[in-house]
């Protein structure tokens, strides 16, 4: 492996800090102007960052679990992105102070007059909620530090035993990831409408996390490699895999989203339909139809031909598209509870979006400054570099 570490160009750091700074100013303004709206926007941004951070850690684990080699040269990218997890553990704290604004079920007078909520109270109460958040973060942080430690130690020791240990860890994390991501989705987003329930909601959010994690990883991988930061031996064959996985999770999301919708539509029970009806009121109707096109149909048609999965320029553009589509999807899940009459997108929402993107770039840059961009000590690296489609 002929890897020589090069520092990222300063423009990356400037862009990250710029977005982060403007975002932060707008966020502070947003909280000063309308606290409740700011908290909903904050939740929206937080869920997006969870998607990218925890989804990237899942990609790292997935590579170990299935023994993939094509992604080994790019694993560091997902590792850097998963460094959002410690940041998220701090970002979640303000959100806990906004629970009264976000969740109607936390109000004692609601609980008193609502027999349905009373029957859900053993799970849905503030204390247990915070305990769950703590447990979920404990799991994420523990596995994050274990995976990262093993991977970075291997750069120097080149010890294959570390890979074997990570494989065992990944098998455990695969199960815990599904459980924790479902708990996160149900707690933070489904409980916004605490009468509503969908057993598919956890899978719905899960499909979105991998959708956006593959997209962000693909964006970084193609950009870094096209500018010569990784290896000359990485080529279209590797890009194709990113394109194929983006395409696959695009279809998977559509499959899950449609399954959830169809069951609600078919059963036609008022306890379930009101959630969809909220998203069909006023301008939300256009937003919902737009979701089908933005999130599924347009990327599906663009990514369908094989040739578009190997074109680096198109792939990065589609990755940006996927990021926007995931923001769009989470907005659809969270915001109708606040904007009941129709969707609104103002400077406040834009500020939170900028902050999220800026934070991802900054975290990536800080991590990339210290650590090799390619896991040079990984025993699978050589076969990963040699990967050929046919």
């Amino acid at each position: 492996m002929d890897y020589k570490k090069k520092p990222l160009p300063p423009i990356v750091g400037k862009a990250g800090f710029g977005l982060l700074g403007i975002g932060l100013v707008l966020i502070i303004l947003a909280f000063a102007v309308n606290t409740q709206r700011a908290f909903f926007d904050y939740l929206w941004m937080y869920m997006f960052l969870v998607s990218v951070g925890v989804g990237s850690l899942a990609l790292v684990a997935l590579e170990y679990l299935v023994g993939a080699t094509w992604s080994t040269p790019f694993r560091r990218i997902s590792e850097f992105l998963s460094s959002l997890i410690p940041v998220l553990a701090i970002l979640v704290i303000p959100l806990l102070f906004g629970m009264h604004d976000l969740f109607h079920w936390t109000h004692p007078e609601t609980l008193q007059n609502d027999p349905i909520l009373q029957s859900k109270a053993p799970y849905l109460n503030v204390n247990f909620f915070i305990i769950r958040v703590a447990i979920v973060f404990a799991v994420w942080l523990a596995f994050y530090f274990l995976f990262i430690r093993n991977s970075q130690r291997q750069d120097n020791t080149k010890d294959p035993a570390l890979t074997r240990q990570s494989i065992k860890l990944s098998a455990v994390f695969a199960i815990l990831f599904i459980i924790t991501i479902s708990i996160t989705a149900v707690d933070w987003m489904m409980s916004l409408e605490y009468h509503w329930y969908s057993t598919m909601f956890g899978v719905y959010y899960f499909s979105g996390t991998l959708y956006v994690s593959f997209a962000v990883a693909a964006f970084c991988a193609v950009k870094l490699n096209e500018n010569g930061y990784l290896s000359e031996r990485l080529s279209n064959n590797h890009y194709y895999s990113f394109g194929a996985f983006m395409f696959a999770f695009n279809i998977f999301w559509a499959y899950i989203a449609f399954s959830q919708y169809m069951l609600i539509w078919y059963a036609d029970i008022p306890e379930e339909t009101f959630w969809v009806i909220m998203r069909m009121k006023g301008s939300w109707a256009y937003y919902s139809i737009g979701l089908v096109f933005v999130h599924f149909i347009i990327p599906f048609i663009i990514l369908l031909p094989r040739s578009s999965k190997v074109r680096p320029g198109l792939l990065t553009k589609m990755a940006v598209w996927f990021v926007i589509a995931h923001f769009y999807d989470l907005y659809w899940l969270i915001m109708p509870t606040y904007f009941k009459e129709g969707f609104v997108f103002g400077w406040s929402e834009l500020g939170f979006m900028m902050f999220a993107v800026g934070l991802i770039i900054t975290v990536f840059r800080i991590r990339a400054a210290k650590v090799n961009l390619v896991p040079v000590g990984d025993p699978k690296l050589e076969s990963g570099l040699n990967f050929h489609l046919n």
Partner: protein
Amino acid sequence: MVSIMIKKLINSLKEYDSKADTEHRSKKLFGLAALYNTPNEIITAAADVAGKGYEKFDVYTPYPMHGMDDAMGMKSSKVGYVSFALGLTGMCLALLMIWWMSSVNYPNIIGGKPFFALPASIPITFEGTVLLTGIATVLGVLILFNQLPKINSPLNDTDFMKRVTSDKFGLVINADDEKFIDADVRKLFLSGGAFEVQEIYYRETNLGIKTPIFDGKFISIIFATAILTAIITYVTLNIVLYDVVPFDWMWNQAKINSQSKSDFFPNKAGMREPVNGTVARGFLPYEYKGMPDSSVKLLSNPLAVSRKVLERGQERFNIYCSPCHGYFGEGDGRMRDQFPKPPSLHNQKVLNWPDGNIFHVITNGQNVMPSYAEQVPVDDRWAIIHYIRALQRSKNASDEDLTKSK
């Protein structure tokens, strides 16, 4: 008996397997085949051959080799287009099928949904798309790569094929390639490290125009297999497994049939009694049962006269009323000698009756006439009344009616 037959079959298969390729080969050269020892040699050899400008050549390896497509300079295959086209066709056909079945051929209300609803059809549309895409991909591969009507390559049963399907790597340049010159090709092979070069000749049968797929024997075997399969399936499902759960065509189901016994309920009756006071749809109790005519006269016909209503009235009248009253209401029906003759519907009394009175007679019965409430639903009774009025008018038509109908 069966075991002997199976042994014989296995033996004949073994014999067939070990038989040398005795079929007569013609003098026409199919191509030159080279054998290599290592995967690296075959990849460089393939790149060499492609680089020299040969187009009609192929590589045979015991396992799929990464990087071979690039080395051979292959373009991406056309199978994807076939799959895409048939996938779209499958999608359209599935949608068309659902639409036709659920809203044209057999419209049925399910769960209060529209006859044709997109969410309900998506799963079938998806299945149709996937099914035809899959079939198209297999057929596309068979036709584009295996050149389907041809089912036998001259390479089959040669020494070369035996080697490349076990432990060696082979490359064949076809003799009909534009650049094919025997000596050049041999030189190219040997310089690339080939340890053996073989000539492959066409079989006599390969040269004929007739492809074996249209062979009479082949086709009759296919048909015979199909017929045999159909017969065996029929006998198995309809005779052998007829009463065996779960192949019993769902005769036996875990449910209570109407009019049958059930141990589940204390009174052992499978059917439940309706709740007291239950009224079936369209069977509202008649409020004027046995009442004097006066209160009935208040009822007026709720149906507007239209061609459809009159035709319905005529149809019902001909079924239920005409046996006694006759097709024209004159009391000369087909039952005239077996029952007391009913009065004509054209007499002054009936002409003067309000609609409600006729309704009362149909519903309640009168003299010998029984109640028709069970046979004729309310709306049909009113339709019949419209028709009776039309009959009456036809007997007493004025001149104005004639001019109007012009």
